[in-house]
């Protein structure tokens, strides 16, 4: 959910763009991270672990921990917490290590 009113901060958002999560069209803002756009849309299960298939979500949000790896435009292991959103991106949840196509 997006914050509309804040006592201290004023959020400068980029242009609204569409992208796809598991084929479903979602709106986000250019310049924010993929993680931000997904969380704004209430999506927080980003993939599943390799062996135990446990759900994976965002943890550090600054590119340290690799918990948020997803498949973006066919490329696996993208840290979506630091990857910026672009119009038309295809974002898919990642199962395990992902596979190079």
């Amino acid at each position, binding site marked *: *959910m*997006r*914050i509309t*009113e*804040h*006592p*201290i*901060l004023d*959020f400068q*958002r980029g242009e609204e763009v569409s992208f796809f999560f598991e084929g479903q069209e979602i709106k986000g803002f250019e310049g*924010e*991270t993929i*993680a*931000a756009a997904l*969380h*704004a849309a209430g999506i*927080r*299960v*980003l993939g599943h*672990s390799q062996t135990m298939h*446990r*759900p*994976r*979500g*965002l*943890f*550090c*949000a*600054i*590119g*340290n*921990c690799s*918990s948020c790896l997803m498949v973006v435009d066919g490329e696996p292991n993208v840290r979506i*917490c*630091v990857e*910026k959103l672009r119009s038309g991106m295809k974002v898919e949840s990642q199962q395990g290590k992902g596979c190079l196509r």
Partner: protein
Amino acid sequence: MPKVKEIEILIIGGGPAGLSAANAAAELGASVLVLERDGKPGGQLVKQTHKFFGSKKQYAGDRGYQIGHLLIDQCEKNPKVEVWTDATALGIYEDGVVTAERQGKHLKIKPKKIVVATGASEKMIAFPNNDMPGIFGAGAVQTLMNVHGIVPGQRVLMIGAGNIGLIVSYQLMQAGVEVAGIIEASPTIGGYLVHASKIRRAGVPILTSHTILEAYGQESVEGAIICQLDEQWQPIPGSEQDLKVDVICLAVGLSPLTELCFQADCQMKYVPELSGHVPIRNDYLETTRPGLYVAGDVSGVEEASSAMVEGRLAGVSAAYSLEYGNDAAPKLQAEAMAELSELRSGPAGQKTLKGIMKLTDKGEAAC
């Protein structure tokens, strides 16, 4: 661009310490390059909405993000400072070459001096289901809320009543999120009481001697079981509480991000008071690898205020070693050291001072 970028001082990390180091070194006339892995400099400082303490020289009374923008402004205005964003340092080699990745390109940089100001990363604690979506580090919550303007969920359990746990709880409330409570395993609140009082006044309980037993939920967090601890830090049976929350926020401390220091073969030492393995360094923040300085959380986890002063000290020292500011530098160094002593003179600073003593104690074995 030439194959190897030559520069006088390379600063790795564009947070409060790195930017302060860049400004200080450039003021004395040195040419500086800052590598920042994020899309913009400022580090975690630009995510802080609270007002800082300290003295005027440490920007007391200003909010974190305002100080961050001030430091960025200073860098932008100084032609001696170049900042590369989206640039991640990869390694520091024996011949002094530093490699970095930027926009898919592998870059080589040959600096005369290096300041490592890489900061820290969030610590984790062990409990069942701690890997579930909906469990965030406090820094992640700040990034979502204060950079992107997105709330992490509806109702939050905060773990840790140090300054970060208290401040982020307050920030959550400012963003309209309910904070179910703050739990803290130790019997006392670690953070400043001024922050704690603000939170309690808003009706949020701070439960000391409490811990989390487990998180639960199907695909993401739906709740947490917490309990009280006895004097031996053991769970008291029957004290369990079930909290319906969709977010668990961990504010259980930070570890220095010292991979580059290890890799550069700096002599390291484990110092619990400084929150982990840190490089051994002298009073001017130079490590055992000559010409490699450290500043900020990488040299021991503290606060942004001291990180900025350390940055200034490291920046001045690196420039001085290149014979810049021969008149001004010794005075600037002394000033910075005096400010650090003052910042560390409170009760919280005692731990840091003890840690630094251990670092400079040449008698003990290091790893």
